[in-house]
């Protein structure tokens, strides 16, 4: 029973990160319909910008803010200088996908060249171990869960109660109609990339505190960015968040009776089962109606 409790705690902290990855990528995909594989590159940029920031200013919070800023600038630059250019050139979704994949690999390689391949740790987070019987976790896991919850609630509130949020929902629902009623769609594409990158960056910072930054983190990040979106249903922000938690719990609890090394396989089993039962994802119908 202790093991089960431990696995649930692990699943919640891991799922919180997956939720952040999912809602950030899901927002960008819902608004722009761009399979933004370079989201993994944004994750790596955020991690290394934070590391670099800490080398420069020392303070973790300031460094994290620099990481978040770096991610936003990178996300906006990718949309402005790569995707917009390709869309203007009538590039097919496949071409855009390949360009994004190329961006991810290029960024990871440039970072490896510049920083080396060894893990770059962040210091200064005062880890406090919390024990409940033999179940152990720490305050970083609590921060992960809290950050994901705050950003999810904040995003939903923003989309429902602000003018630009409502405009974003209109673009998600029907970009052509949004353009007809005077919404500058390309401006909202940029906003989606900025917002998506902003939501992703805290996950990058928290993961880097826990594991250190390595150039290959981007591949891991992109895998767990689109998986919650597919499972939760494209266009559904709460769906992506819930799916992130489900994947985290499934991966964690799944190893209760099988070897831990098959954890990634469990995530894909969940993905396949959900797609077989409900090909549009758990909340997929909402895509159609464009509700967030």
């Amino acid at each position: 029973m202790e093991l089960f409790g431990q696995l649930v705690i692990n699943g919640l902290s891991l799922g919180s990160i997956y939720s952040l990855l999912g809602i950030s990528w899901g927002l960008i995909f819902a608004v722009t319909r761009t399979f933004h594989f370079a989201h993994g590159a944004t994750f790596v940029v955020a991690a290394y910008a934070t590391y670099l920031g800490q080398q420069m200013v020392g303070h973790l919070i300031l460094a994290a803010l620099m990481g978040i800023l770096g991610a936003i600038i990178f996300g906006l630059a990718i949309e402005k200088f790569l995707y917009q250019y390709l869309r203007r050139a009538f590039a097919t979704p496949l071409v855009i996908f390949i360009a994004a994949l190329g961006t991810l690999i290029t960024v990871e390689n440039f970072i490896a060249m510049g920083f080396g391949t060894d893990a770059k740790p962040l210091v200064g987070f005062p880890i406090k171990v919390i024990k409940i019987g033999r179940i152990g976790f720490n305050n970083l896991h609590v921060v992960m869960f809290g950050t994901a919850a705050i950003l999810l609630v904040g995003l939903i509130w923003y989309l429902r109660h602000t003018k630009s949020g409502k405009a974003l929902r209109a673009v998600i629902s029907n970009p052509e109609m949004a353009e007809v009623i005077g919404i500058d769609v390309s401006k909202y594409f940029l906003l989606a990339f900025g917002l998506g990158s902003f939501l992703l960056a805290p996950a990058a910072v928290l993961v880097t505190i826990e594991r250190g930054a390595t150039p290959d983190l981007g591949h891991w990040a992109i895998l767990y960015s689109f998986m919650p979106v597919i499972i939760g249903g494209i266009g559904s922000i709460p769906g992506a968040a819930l799916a992130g938690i489900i994947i985290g719990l499934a991966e964690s609890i799944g190893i209760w009776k099988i070897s831990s090394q098959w954890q990634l396989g469990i995530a894909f089993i969940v993905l396949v089962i959900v797609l077989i039962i409900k090909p549009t994802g758990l909340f997929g119908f909402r895509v159609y109606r464009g509700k967030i």
Partner: protein
Amino acid sequence: MKRSISIGSLIIIVSLLVFSSPSAAADPKEYKIGAILAMTGAGAWYGQVMSQGFLTAMDEINAQGGIGGIKFKAVIEDHQSGSGAAAISGFNKLVNVDKVPFSFTSYTAPTLSIIPVANEKHVLLLNGGAVGPKLVKASPYLFNNRMLAVMHGLGLAQRAKERGFTKMAALFWNDDAGIGTHKFVEPRWKAMGGTVVAAEAHPIGTTDYKPYLSKIMAANPDFLALWQWGKDWGIAVKQAREMGFPKPIMGIEFTPDAAKIAGATADGYEAVTDYFDPKGTDSWTQKFVASYKAKYKNEPEFYAANYYEGVYILAELIKKAKAKGGDYWHGKALREALIEIKRFPSVYGGYVEFNPEDGTCKKKTALFVVKGGERIFQKYIEIQ
């Protein structure tokens, strides 16, 4: 008659030229050697430091005019952190295009993959990084100038017994090196009166150990044994401590980058591993450390040292083989020279001694404990 004499003379002259004294074999323009390393992927750090190690040695030797005026040149191929297919493809290029008679290698699976080609083409292989048990007696052309993991694992078990532990939990790579080490150590640990309460294999380069550690913590072991290398042990130790795992953690690896990741959580971590001390007093050690630091701005650790040392071993082989005459720049001649010499100076201080029967070596092995990010030497380990 005259004509037949002149033809006969010609045949004799040609025969003399072809079958004349072996010392007449032509020197190569350069000593081109190969290296199959992890230059990309999760283990790219290894490829980086290993190549830096042998390039440092080559630069030193080349700066002094090479060996008898012939300089070294390295051709590096990438096995992408453990891919057998990539290793074979790279090695075929080294053998068929670059025509190398000698190659450095690393990682267990890629090394095992290239052995059939090395045997067929008589290419001498020197491994200074891989530790898998299957490397023992794997090929007459494979020699290892680092102690293999099974021996370190055994040393760790001896140390655990000495500390009075009985319940072992093991966390290890799910490859030949990790699984092989665990399979080797487990029966020997049980023979010492111990039990294994948890055994968790994980993919190389794992960054989230919480699932594995959850099972290990639930099994309530006396200590945790790590059969992991590179940065993995640092992340595992950090996450174990941050989950509140209070028991001793022991391993068979220490690398500064992993220690940096683990930070203060690594305090008390014990490692049984090769003894390369960059602060050592041996004059060759000091020369290597100074040379490496000048080039790469970092202190070398034992991976770089093994490959650095490998170049000097090769230099000795070349000199020995050349002195014997014949086609000395050939894997067979180099192998024969190694078997004859057997014992070489080591950059660790002391000597590295090869066992020609199985390709393993004996080198300094020691017990370290980590404190403040540094490994502190405790004592030498005599592995039984």
